[in-house]
């Protein structure tokens, strides 16, 4: 199964994140971005190359290609739209500042995520804030479920997933979120986290196992409550 195929659209309900999280992590991973495999060029790659080459208008296209995923990532991490907007702006400014030293052929997406993550970490340190993942912000997508039990189930599942993710070691959580929620390949996540592909696989797999075990408990308890 392709890792990208397992990712969610950015507006997917939180419960869907939980359900999709059960997709097998141990499946063969695409190693896009490694030296042995030529990575397909994305819109962001083309736009950045043009921007670095002097085409000022290409920055708008670069923004369009990167901002939805980056903003989704920052919003999920901060749970604060204003902070996410501020961090997205800073990330795009850093990319702009690197215009004159952009390396032709380099991948833009993992680089952009790495910048966003660094700025996010700095922001957290500066503000001494704890990211709380359990604010229970219900996603409107859940409203499509019309049965009250399903609503309760989905809500519990979403909260439980967030709780479990929040309890995971930071390295596991970061690997899991970048791959499962942000749709990065393992190779890209490894670049963002500054580690090896094998380490990211292991971290994501451990996170997945923790999540599966915890969600398995929840599922059986909910099944037991149903008539």
């Amino acid at each position, binding site marked *: 199964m392709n890792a990208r195929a397992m990712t969610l659209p*950015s*507006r997917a309900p939180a419960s869907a994140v939980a359900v999709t999280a059960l997709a097998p992590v141990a499946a063969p991973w695409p190693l896009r971005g490694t030296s042995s495999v030529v990575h397909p060029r994305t819109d962001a790659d083309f736009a950045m190359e043009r921007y*670095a080459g*002097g085409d000022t208008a290409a*920055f*708008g296209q670069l*923004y*369009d290609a990167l*901002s*939805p995923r980056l*903003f*989704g990532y920052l*919003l*999920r991490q901060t749970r604060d*739209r204003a902070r*996410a*907007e501020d961090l*997205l*702006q*800073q990330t*795009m*400014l*850093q990319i*702009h*500042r*690197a*215009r*004159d*030293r*952009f*390396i032709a*052929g*380099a*991948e*833009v997406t*993992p*680089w952009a995520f*790495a*910048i966003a*993550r*660094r*700025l996010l970490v*700095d*922001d957290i340190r*500066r503000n001494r804030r704890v990211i709380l993942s359990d604010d229970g*912000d219900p*996603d*409107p997508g859940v409203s499509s479920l019309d049965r009250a039990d399903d609503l309760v189930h989905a809500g519990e599942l979403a909260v439980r997933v967030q709780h479990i993710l929040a309890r995971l070691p930071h390295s596991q959580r970061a690997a899991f979120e970048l791959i499962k929620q942000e749709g990065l390949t393992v190779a890209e996540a490894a*670049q*963002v*986290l*500054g*580690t*090896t592909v094998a380490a990211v696989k292991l971290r994501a797999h451990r996170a997945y196992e923790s999540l599966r075990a915890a969600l398995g408990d929840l599922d059986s308890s909910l099944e037991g409550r149903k008539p």
Partner: protein
Amino acid sequence: MSSLPPPDLRSRILDAIEREPVPSRAARSRRRALAVVIGFASLLTALAVVGPKMHARPAAYVAALVFAWLPIAALATWAGVTPGRSMLGRPVAWRVAVVTLTPVALMAAWAGVAMIWPAMLQDTSTIKRHFICDAATLGFSIGPLVAFTIVRRASDPVNPRLTGAAIGTAAATWAAVVLHLICGYTSGAHMLFGHVAPVVLLALIGSVLTARTVAIRTKTG
């Protein structure tokens, strides 16, 4: 809650980048090349000021040491300082290898040369002489260190400490190469504590000081 950025953010960001012009790629390349030239020129100037000294060493021994350590310095610079083909720099393992293996490679190369000139294994160096060479290596490495730091300024969002350590290692290795042209002490202890130890020390310094410049940080104020 929508996870899409608000429509007005795009125009705000585009306005912001218009207010912050970036030098052209050619201008930046010129500046980086100038930094490297000045960095190495300062190293050679320091050598000229102190003056190369052979002491009681055979010229072939000195040449062999310099040519044994020179490729190590070049390799450390290539693997630890240059970013390669990724905007995130070379793989972590490469930089870890630079920091950990360079001192080992330097000692191994010295040992190889010393096998050919076993008489050079003995000298009258003291702890004070070790410290003098430590200080000289650190002093000589300032030029390359500043140059490499300028080359990698604000470029590493992931592992700036590791990149800083690799930069420190590479800079100190160049200084250690030059020091062979000055220092007449050749024993294993002096080589280890006077010439290779500062490479490790500068890696530590780089991981703290250089890392701050190499890191991508939020602009404040």
